[in-house]
């Protein structure tokens, strides 16, 4: 079935929960991504319980700073 992840079609074999989708869709640092499904924020505690269905629109929203991180020397 086809779902839409960050604006791109993604073909998945079966319905997945959000945690599984984060892996399949190769989300970067899935522990910290914010997830929207059809415009609604999904609470992290519900990532196991909420499944994606055909045509769902999913957004992964990432933290972004300024490209400058403290480096331990």
């Amino acid at each position, binding site marked *: 079935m086809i779902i839409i992840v960050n604006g791109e079609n993604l073909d998945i074999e079966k319905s997945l929960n959000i945690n599984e989708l984060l892996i399949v869709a190769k989300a970067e640092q899935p522990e910290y991504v914010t997830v929207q499904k059809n415009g609604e924020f999904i609470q992290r505690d519900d990532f196991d319980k909420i499944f994606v269905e055909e045509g769902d629109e999913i957004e992964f929203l*990432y933290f972004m700073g*300024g*490209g400058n*991180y403290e480096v331990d020397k």
Partner: protein
Amino acid sequence: MKLTNEQLERYSRHIILEQVGGKGQKKILDSKVLIIGTGGLGSPATMYLAAAGVGTIGLVDYDIVDLSNLQRQIIHQTSDLNKPKIESGKETINAINPDVTVKTYNELVNSKNIADIIKDADYDFIIDGTDNFPAKFLINDACVLLKKPFSHAGIIRFQGQTMTYVPDKSPCYRCVFSEMPPKDAVPTCRQAGVLGVMGGVIGTLQATEALKYILGVGELLTGFLLTYDALSMNFRKIKIKRNSKCAICGENPKITELVDYEQPACSFRK
């Protein structure tokens, strides 16, 4: 106050715009914008707002100009090395446009000083040009509590994002990103770094939002997160809703006063 002949000429390409005119240019000249962080995002935002004639620009930064800044922080030049960034920034603003009054704050924003800085000139609009998460959460929380509009932005590698907050009208940064990322989280070191122009693209969008807010024209990025991927050249406007459980702007806010967070640091051997 009437525009002088010199101002009529300097701002002629604004004044000729139907949505700006002499009246709009006067609004810009009367406006006050605070730019927190004089780095990759703050540099272009400051320079365009100075050129546009924003009457008062406040600059907040505590750093000095370092050689590694010059790849993207275009308000500073090679001759500014080791100068405080706010000094270097002020000199560039003055060189661009003597109409602008510059206020400088040589400080790192924290829970104790941010409200005083924002209230110092009763700034109309705030630009988050910082590069760290504690500052981003602090600016959001301060603007929500003080009911001030602001532009959030972040850049990393070839990507950037920005959103605009207007009190009572739009979701805030915390509606999207509820909690500070844990230490050593964002991002892993091998993913860090940023293409210099990302600040130019996104910081200029922040300046655009500030000018639109001042002029009261167009549609702001309120209720949207705009993301930009330079590798695919995709801009996406992602609709975001207010989160009723938001810790600061939700129905039962848990945060009622400002707090300081620790910046996640990555371990990285040079």
